[in-house]
C-alpha cells in the first residue's frame, strides 16, 4: 500500500479563501458539510434556458446523483459545476454556484483552478494516446507537482482500483486497456490532481455490467475521500450508489432528498411518475 503523496501542486489562488481552508473538506470526517452550494442558478444556451433557477446543496463526502429524462438539464448543471460549459459559445449563467462559499463564476475565480479542485469524468472513457503512466502523470507535472511522481501515479491507480491490473504494464498504451479499465484510468487521472469533488457524467453508460459493477464499487470507496456528483440515466445505479438523489425535469429541479426516500416515497408526483416509468 502506498502512502498518500505529499507533494504539492503550484496552486493559483482560487479566491479570497486560503488554500488550507479550501482543502479542509477532503479530510473525511466532515460529512454533512456543504461542498457546493447552488442558489437560484440558471444556464442559458443563447435564448434557451437549459437550467432553471436551481437551488440545492451538495454535501461533502457523499454521493449525489442527478437523474431525469434526456434534455432535462442534468448534464448541463453538472458541467456548470466546474465551468465546463464556458467553452460553448453563447452560454451564460445567472445565480450563484459556490464551492466552499466562493462563487466559481465570480470575476476573480480562475476556471482552470476550479477544474483542478472539481474534477470530471466523462461518459466515454477518453484516455490520452500515451502510456498508462503518462496519462496519470501528465497533468500533475504541468501543474508543477513537486513530490514523487511514481508514488502519485501508484496512489491514484490504487484509489481507482486499477493498480493490480496495470502495475506491470505502466509503459503500455492506455488505449490497449478495456473500456472499463480505461474509465477507471480516467478516474485515476482525475484523482491524481487531488481534487475535492469528482463530477461523473454517466460514467458507466458505455460499459458492460461487470465494468459497471467495478465503477460502482469504486464510487462507494471514493466517497470516503471525495465528494461525488453523478449524472446517470440508470435509476437502479442511482439507487445503488448515491446517498442523495436529485430529480430534474425540463431544466427544473423537481425534488432532491435522501436516495432511499426518493426511491420509496418521493414527495412529488412528477418524481414518482418518473421513477416508476409512468412518465409522459
Amino acid at each position, binding site marked *: 500500500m502506498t502512502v498518500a503523496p505529499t507533494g504539492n501542486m503550484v496552486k493559483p489562488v482560487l479566491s479570497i479563501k486560503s488554500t488550507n481552508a479550501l482543502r479542509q473538506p477532503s479530510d473525511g470526517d466532515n460529512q454533512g458539510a456543504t461542498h457546493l452550494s447552488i442558489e437560484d442558478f440558471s444556464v442559458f444556451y443563447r435564448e434557451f434556458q437549459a437550467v432553471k433557477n436551481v437551488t440545492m446543496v451538495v454535501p461533502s463526502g457523499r454521493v449525489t446523483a442527478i437523474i431525469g429524462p434526456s434534455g432535462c438539464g442534468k448534464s448541463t448543471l453538472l458541467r456548470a459545476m466546474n465551468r465546463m460549459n464556458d467553452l460553448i459559445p453563447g452560454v451564460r449563467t445567472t445565480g450563484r454556484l459556490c464551492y466552499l462559499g466562493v462563487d466559481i463564476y465570480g470575476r476573480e475565480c480562475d476556471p482552470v483552478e476550479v477544474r483542478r479542485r472539481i474534477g470530471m469524468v466523462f461518459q466515454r472513457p477518453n484516455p490520452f494516446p500515451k502510456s498508462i503512466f503518462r496519462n496519470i502523470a501528465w497533468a500533475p507535472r504541468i501543474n508543477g507537482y513537486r513530490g514523487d511522481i511514481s508514488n502519485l501515479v501508484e496512489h491514484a491507480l490504487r484509489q481507482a482500483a486499477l493498480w493490480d491490473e496495470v502495475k506491470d504494464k505502466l509503459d503500455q498504451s492506455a488505449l490497449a486497456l478495456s473500456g472499463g479499465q480505461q474509465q477507471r484510468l480516467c478516474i485515476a487521472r482525475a484523482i491524481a490532481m487531488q481534487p475535492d469533488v469528482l463530477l461523473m457524467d454517466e460514467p458507466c453508460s458505455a460499459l458492460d455490467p461487470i465494468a459497471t459493477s467495478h465503477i460502482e464499487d469504486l464510487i462507494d470507496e471514493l466517497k470516503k475521500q471525495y465528494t461525488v456528483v453523478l449524472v446517470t440515466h440508470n*435509476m*437502479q445505479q442511482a*439507487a445503488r450508489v448515491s446517498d442523495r438523489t436529485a430529480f430534474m425535469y425540463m431544466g427544473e429541479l423537481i425534488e432532491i432528498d435522501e436516495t432511499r426516500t426518493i*426511491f*420509496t*416515497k*418521493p414527495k412529488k408526483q412528477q418524481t*414518482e411518475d418518473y*421513477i*416508476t*416509468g*409512468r412518465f409522459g
Partner: protein
Amino acid sequence: MTVHFVNQLDELLLRSVRMGNLVEDMVQEAGEAVFEPGDRLARRVISRDFAVDDEEVKVESEVIRLMALYQPVGPDLRLLCTILKVNNDLERVADCAVNIAERACHLDAAKDLPGAETVRQMDPLVRRMLRDVLQAYSAQDGEAAKKIFTEEEMVDALYAQTVKTIVAEGADSSHEMASLLDMLSVAKNLERIGDFATNIAEDVVFLSTGDIVRHQSPPEES
C-alpha cells in the same frame, strides 16, 4: 413495458384480494361452525385450506418474478412488498380458521360453555375487521385501514374476558375439560385473526404512505 408491468401488478393485487375473500369466507364459516350442530361447515373450512396454501405459493412466486424482472421502485415496490406480507398473513388467517373449525368438530354444545357469550361477540367483530381491512387493501386506502387499530383493542379485551370467564366458571361447571380448552382455543384463534387483520392494516398504511407504523403506540384520539 411499463403498461405491461402495471397490468401485471393490478392483476396480482386482484388475485391477492380474491385470496383474501376466500380466507374471509373460511373465517365466517369457521365461526358459524362453532355454534352449529354437526361438522359439515367445519369440514368445508378444513378442505378449503389447500386452495389457500396453493394460492399463497403462486402469489409469492409472482411477486418474486415481478421484482426480479422489473426491479420496481416507489409505490410499485411498496405494493409488491405489501402483497408479499399480506399474502403471508392471509395464509396464517386461513390456518386460524382451520384451527377453529377443528375445534368446532368437537364442540356440539358450544353455546352452553363458559366463554361462549364473549366468543359470540368476538366472532362478528373479527370478521368485520377482516372485511374492512381487505376493502382498504383493495382500494390501497391507508386512512380506512387505520380504523382497524381501535377494533383490535376491543377484540383483545373480549379475549381477556373469555379467558377470565373460562377460568372462573370452568372448574365448577359440569363440562369436560377438553370442551373448555376447545372453547379457549377458538377464542385464541379469533384473537390471532384480529392481530393478523391489524398487521394487514399496518401494511396498507405503508402501501399508502411509505411509513412503517408497526410497533408504535396507537395515535391518541382527540
